[in-house]
């Protein structure tokens, strides 16, 4: 058994907030550079040029890449042989978010109540925390700060089995097309298929934690990812929705077993500023 002090979790989350906000993952940046070379439209090239300048500026000056520094979504893989000491796990995560967003001059974007007063909590808490118990004695903390512009364009459908592969693909393409320029393309398209209503939404979100452009290990799903990426890029939406060849950088599909009556599908879009950081304790 390994003991992990709660204050270490707070410090780690604080660091993840800063790193994610200022410094795009290397995989996203190299994918952006690769796709920029394929863009034919003048506005698309202009958008890529601004995006690249912004990445350099944010990194060198330690500024947020995007003013929407997002909802702090934390994925925790907790080894079953871990014992967290000296504090409450969730509160340790929230405190890390509180400190990171304050210290990094990041925007606080969370409303305490969605319907009535919509008052800003002032410290970007609460974080959204997804925990999974896994074998071992390590604690993996991953932070996906998720901007509202792309998150608002996500959709979920409880399709039925007769809809089949064609129905799922059509729903994905419809979602990207309806989103247009709103989610800040070029996007990463996270797709969840199967499971239940709650699980499929989380699958789509988890698909965005995969290293950008990495293929599903199942070759059938990897082939779908390549095919759907080509289909998304044939829409012509292009960078920022102004017209062009590169609407998406990647399509990531995650799937789970599902009920005999069901074919759930969820699409979660991430903007080009696909921020992510993780640490293992």
């Amino acid at each position, binding site marked *: 058994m390994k003991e992990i002090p709660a204050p270490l979790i707070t410090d780690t989350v604080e660091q993840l907030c800063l790193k994610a906000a200022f410094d795009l993952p290397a995989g996203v940046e190299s994918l952006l550079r690769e796709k920029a070379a394929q863009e034919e439209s003048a*506005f698309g090239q202009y958008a890529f040029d601004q995006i690249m300048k912004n990445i350099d500026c944010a990194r060198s000056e330690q500024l947020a890449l995007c003013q929407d520094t997002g909802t702090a979504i934390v994925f925790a893989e907790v080894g079953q042989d871990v014992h967290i000491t000296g504090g409450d796990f969730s509160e340790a995560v929230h405190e890390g978010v509180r400190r990171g967003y304050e210290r990094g001059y990041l925007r606080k974007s969370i409303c305490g109540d969605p319907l009535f007063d919509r008052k800003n909590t002032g410290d970007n808490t609460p974080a959204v925390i997804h925990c999974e118990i896994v074998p071992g004695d390590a604690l993996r903390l991953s932070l996906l700060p998720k901007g509202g512009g792309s998150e608002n364009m996500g959709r979920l459908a409880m399709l039925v089995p007769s809809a089949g592969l064609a129905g799922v693909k059509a729903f994905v393409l419809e979602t990207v097309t309806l989103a247009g320029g709103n989610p800040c393309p070029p996007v990463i398209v996270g797709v969840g298929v199967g499971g239940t209503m709650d699980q499929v939404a989380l699958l789509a979100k988890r698909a965005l934690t995969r290293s950008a452009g990495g293929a599903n290990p199942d070759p059938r799903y990897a082939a779908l990812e390549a095919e759907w990426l080509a289909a998304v890029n044939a829409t012509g939406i292009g960078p920022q929705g*102004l017209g062009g060849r590169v609407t998406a950088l990647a399509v990531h599909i995650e799937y789970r077993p599902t009920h005999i009556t069901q074919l759930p599908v969820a699409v979660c879009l991430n903007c080009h500023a696909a921020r992510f950081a993780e640490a293992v304790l």
Partner: protein
Amino acid sequence: MAEIREIKKIQTPLTDDAANGLKAGDMVSISGVIYTARDAAHKRLVQALSDGAALPFDLEGQIIYYVGPCPAKPGQAIGPCGPTTSFRMDAYTPALLDCGLKGMIGKGQRTEPVTLAMRRNRAVYFAAVGGAAAVISKCVREAEVIAFGDLGPEAIRRLVVEDFPAIVVIDADGTDQYKIGPEAYRK
């Protein structure tokens, strides 16, 4: 590949002539005073109009920038401040256009009531590159909260900008780059 036309320099406030001279697809660089407002501030502005109360600034000829900036670091005028998605303001926008608002900076498509109100009032919608927030903050010289400070990032700020880069996406005739751009590249 279509070439980008020259960059047109524009000064705020916008006159009718200036607005009429801008066409969808024009690259512009905006200098002068612009005002920030987004969801919560729009709700209050439109509420003030329906109550017959005074607005915190005169809309005539002005440009509203849809943005909720990050806090400024010491010594900087403003934090990162890229555009937010515009359609969330669409329920409120026609009322503001009918009161003299002449331009909006944001990102993403608008709905028909907005484009109709734009044509009626000869107004222009500009897009800035979403997610380029750090770079965009470099062209903001001054920022001051002038209303609704309790809204934090959603407060109304008066910005002085110099060479703010944007693209005319919907012009005063209703021509829409978000429609014509993708059509040209659809396979």
